């Protein structure tokens, strides 16, 4: 590996170090060096959202961010959504509502939906659809995904969490 840079970061709450070339995407670094293959590559050009993660709380396509940009920041991926054996309400509702078929886009949708619900606890259908418009799903026609997000939002409001 030529021109590798050592990057110190926090991923899903754990301190993580990895060395990566300066032109390597955060997506590749997370997948190939940290071992978090829940971060999916669908396009590598920021068009499909399958590699969505949050960087210091900001939703990003990790294929459009460099690995070295994670230095000193906090990264959250789909692997960090559940609290031990307790699934996040979005994860629960995605299963309950059959909001996944093949499941390849699911990690990105969950990360993006969580980012939405942290900003807006009671989104309308239209708000959900626009917030998730950067995530492509080819299996479901989005119907059951939107319903799952609505159901999770409702549950989270009841539980008083965001």
């Amino acid at each position, binding site marked *: *590996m*030529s021109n590798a840079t050592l990057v110190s970061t926090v991923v899903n709450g754990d301190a993580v170090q990895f060395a990566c*070339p300066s*032109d390597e995407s955060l997506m*590749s670094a997370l*997948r190939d060096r940290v071992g*978090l*293959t*829940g*971060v*999916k*590559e*669908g*396009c*590598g*050009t920021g*068009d*499909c959202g*399958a590699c969505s993660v949050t960087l210091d709380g900001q939703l990003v396509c990790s294929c459009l961010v460099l690995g070295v940009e994670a230095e000193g920041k906090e990264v959250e*991926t*789909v*692997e960090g*959504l559940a609290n031990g054996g307790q*699934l996040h309400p*979005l*994860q629960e509702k*995605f*299963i*309950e*509502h*059959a909001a*996944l*078929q*093949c*499941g*390849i*886009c*699911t*990690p990105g949708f*969950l990360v993006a939906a969580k980012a939405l619900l942290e900003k807006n606890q009671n989104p309308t259908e*239209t708000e*959900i*659809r*626009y917030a*998730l*418009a*950067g*995530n*492509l*799903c*080819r*299996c*479901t*026609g*989005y*119907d*059951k*995904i*939107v*319903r799952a997000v609505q159901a999770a939002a409702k549950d989270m409001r009841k539980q008083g969490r965001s």
Partner: protein
Amino acid sequence: MAHDNRYVEKDYKVVGSRVKRPDGIDKVTGKARYGADASAPGGLVGRVLRSPHPHAQIVKINTAKAEKLTGVKAVITSEDLPDLTNGDQGMAHILENCMARGRALYDGHAVAAVAAIDEQTAAKALKLIDVKYKKLPHVTDVDEAMKPDAPVLHANMFTRGVDPAPTKASNISARTQMGYGDVEAGFAEADVIIERTYKTEQTHQGYIEPHACLASVNPDGTAELWVTTQGHFTFRNVCSKLLGLDIAKLKVTSSEIGGGFGGKTHVWAEPVALALSRKANRPVKLVMSRDEVFRGSGPTSSTSIDVKMGAKKDGTITAAVAEMRYQGGAFPGTWAMLGCMTAFACYDIKNNKTIGWDVVVNRPKVAAYRAPSAPMAAFAVESTIDLLAKEIGMSAIDVRLKNVAREGTQAPYGPTYGPIGIENTLEAVKAHPHMRAKLKKNQGRGIACGFWFNIGGQTCVDLNIGEDGTVNLNVGTVDVGGARSSMAMIAAEELGISYDDVKTHIGDTASLGHNDTTEGSRGTFSSGMATIFAARDAIQVLKERAAKMWGIPVEDVEWQDGEAVAIGQMHDNLPALSLKEIAAKAGRTGGPIAGHNEVVADGAGMGFASHICDVEVDPETGRSQIVRYTVVQDAGKAIHPDYVEGQFQGAAAQGIGWALNEEYIYGDDGRLQNPGFLDYRIPVCSDMPFIDTKILEVPNPNHPYGIRGVGETSIVPPLGAVGNAIANATGVRMTHAPMSPPRVLAALDAQDAG
């Protein structure tokens, strides 16, 4: 042991419920492993060099510089994939499509490949491969390719199905004709005749997971392939043949699959990855970029279709003719033939004729895409039927009902229909509240119908009962969208146990007999049938073991609700034995308890659907927004209704994308201009409304539970439904799909000018 596949009506305990899928947690937590998620010790990165030219002679490939680069472990060209196809032309085309042999036939055609220690080195190595091309004239349009002066792709291709056989090579691989009756007499009876020409553009399946595999070949000829595929057994057979491996020595494991829709039924880079591994003597992971997926893997045909239909004033369609031209990319296919078979399949038309022309062009080799070839034919036919209905002053729904195919109707492609659901779907549409909902300004409503054959095929299932009475079900069709649930439900239903006590596993090629590819909506139909029979096999063993435990003849044992029951007055003091109790004693009553089934699942029930679409067209921009959409489809029997609805909704969404936006755009230079999701725009969440679904259940008489395939049919009606809705919203009949904003705007402007 032969089993009875006839439908028997029964009350279900598990089937028809909405249980949680067993792979759900893995897929919402990121644990599920897809094609690109595997790695191997000493694994290398594989990359493919692709032709930038649509048609060229490859004069020379110099790989010396790439081979010398530090970290490069193998460079291959077609010389490393010698032709072992032994006169099998179909296989030879697959081989040539995987790696160009002296000529490049489309922009994106693979010409060489490298394996290197990392991504950066592999990318550098590709740039060091020097390919000398001699550019040749190209053709990418189906109508242009049929012209006598078009550049010919294959000098040895003479049109089949033409008498006398042509003596000059052309791009037309085959002519197909089918139908029955006397169409001229039929047109003579008609009060109204409509004739139109339609075009549809090429679309891609658009699965979000690119093709990906991990290949490992040993010097002794043993090999393993981990791959995202719809048919790991077929991949094994094809790769074995192309690489000269023994079938039993190549183990193919189907990873989780991130969408396929027909596009993962064919090999692309897998033989290349195996050849790289063989040369490097190390495992090689090869993952396509999205650009490669678009340029190098299977889109569907673009088409050009003429339709002529005649009807009496009472709505009876007296004659129908279609002539359809489908391009199969750079290699011949049977896509026009499928168009011919499906075009008029929803209707009972006494005089019908279809002619199909299969054509090659300088585009990627076409692969199946969900009900392949049917949506384009249906676009032409369903649009024409609406024009007929308007001309004779009947409603779109009544004219369809007047001519609908029923049990006993002869399908245009030959067989006579058994019980089918097309009339039921149309009646359900007619009665649906959606049909009475008010439309707003600039909105219109359209309906359309669709047909798909569905298939069965070779299938093999193992069912093993553990000592605690829980069950492993091993199936060989892949789980593209929740099939593991359906299979476990069926096994639980048959055995009379809880759904949670069955765990479904997708077996690799070393652990099960051959299974045909998961295509043609065959997964739940075929593996469901084999699961029923395997469970019944296991029940027979369970009864024998119970008889042994009791010391009574097996004839006196029945299986009821998950228990062995001794029947007859002689045994009425014997308490029932549960599956768990029998399983616990298996070691002392004859060993492991299992059921197996190997079957050619015949008798797939045809699938029919009718859709309702409301669209709003912006007269300023020509943009169409789907405001309401309803799918009605016959499922035969819905095993897991959530995932049946999901198939309906997903298929409708793909059809809507095709109808409104998706198309391959080629420049005059023959290069694909939009090989990415930004410019090849599939529907996003904000483009879609909720999609209402209605599942009808007209049992398939050839399946114990009445199952029909459900995966494909609902991609067939949307093009017609959207086109009809746009016509009703604007008064403009669109004959070119996708009906994208520029095309609709141009049509609206022409209407204003006219």
